[in-house]
Every structure is written in structure tokens, then in C-alpha cells.
């Protein structure tokens, strides 16, 4: 997994909390910085893809590893 600037563990949280927490964390970050999000909600795979498309933040990576979902989002 590529480098990241900040990490958000949203394990155990259900829709829409992972997205809301990610949005809040991104708000406090600089443009170009990368956020690593860990989630267990299977719905978050489609949701982070949709979140990136609609907000202009880039979804650099989306993968499942060890029963958890990992996302890398670069702030626009």
C-alpha cells in the first residue's frame, strides 16, 4: 500500500458513518494529502467509489485485505 498522511479506522461502523467520518477527516487535511481508511462495512466499497466521483477527491486504491476494506483517498 502506498504512503499516506493520515489514517481513519472506521471498522465496525455502518452506513453512512464511514463516509461521514472520512469527509470530516478530509476537511482537516491539505490538498494532495492522502487518507487511508479502514472499514468493515461491505457497502463501503461502492460508497467510497461514489464519494470520490462526486466530491472530486481521487480514490487511489480500494482493496480487501484480511477481511477488511482499505481505501486510499487523495484530497483534491
Amino acid at each position, binding site marked *: 500500500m502506498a504512503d499516506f498522511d493520515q489514517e481513519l479506522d472506521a471498522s465496525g*461502523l*455502518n*452506513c*453512512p458513518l464511514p*463516509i*461521514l467520518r472520512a469527509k470530516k477527516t478530509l476537511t482537516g487535511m491539505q490538498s494532495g494529502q492522502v487518507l487511508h481508511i479502514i472499514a468493515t*462495512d461491505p457497502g463501503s466499497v461502492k460508497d467510497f467509489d461514489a464519494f470520490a466521483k462526486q466530491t472530486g477527491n481521487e480514490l487511489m486504491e480500494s482493496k480487501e485485505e484480511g477481511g477488511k476494506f482499505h481505501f486510499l483517498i487523495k484530497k483534491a
Partner: protein
Amino acid sequence: MAKKLAIIATKGSLDWAYPPFILASTAAALGYEVQIFFTFYGLQLLKKQPALEVTPLGNPGMPMPMGMDKWFPVLGLALPGMQAMMTTMMKKKMTAKGVASIEELRELCHEAEVKMVACQMTVDLFDMDRTAFIDGVEYAGAAAFFEFAGDSDICLYI
């Protein structure tokens, strides 16, 4: 210019409290400008201490825990205490599954500057006291709703 989402929230049960707050908070996170107009039973969602319950009555789609639907036919669901018990079980399940509480989602909406408008007519109709509602609520009528909803990209009646 930001997209706009207008929601009318008309229901005051625990289960129906979720769609307006989930959609409003998510839309706000996606950059939407959001307004929710609370009318009739939907006003219960604005109470400082919302006492929301879920009822199995008249709700054949509600999954019943422990096969209770086999043991309690429809009339059994009307027994005193059944609604309170269902509500407790639903809340426990929600906590176990990492589903946010209504108060938490509502606070997230508030932080995301979702505008919450209470229907003044219903407040009068039910003799409700404004002090029972959370801070930051605006009071208006149908015309005010259309001012926002008329320019909205998505408009939902829940």
C-alpha cells in the same frame, strides 16, 4: 453551484427516523446543500430527547427476533409492552451492528449545516412547545419549503 436536496420528513417512528437523517448527512458530505422540512409526526425527530419507538403492528415486513412471529400472531403484537420490547431489541441490534443513533446522525446533520425547518402549523396543531425542540430549528410553512425545494435537484417525501 452546490446541488440541493430537499426532504419532507413526516414520520415519527424509530425506523422511519433514519432515512431523512442518513440521506441528509450523506448528501451534505457529498457537497449538497440540504434542507429538511419536518411536519406532522416528523416533528418528533426534532425533540431534544426523542422517544422514538418501532412497532411491529401493521408492519408485516418487520423481521421478528427469535421467531416471535410464530409465537405471537397479529393480536399478540398488540399486547402491552410489546412495542417497548421491540424498540429495545431494535436499538440493541443497531448498536451491535455499528448503526448510528438518531441523536448522533442528527448532530452530524447539524454540524454539516443541514437546515432543519419545523412546520409551524403542526407545532400549533399539536400544542407543541418550541422549547422541547433542539436549538437551530427554524419555523416556517409550505411556501418557505417551496422556496428551497423549487430550486432543488432532488426532492424526497419520507
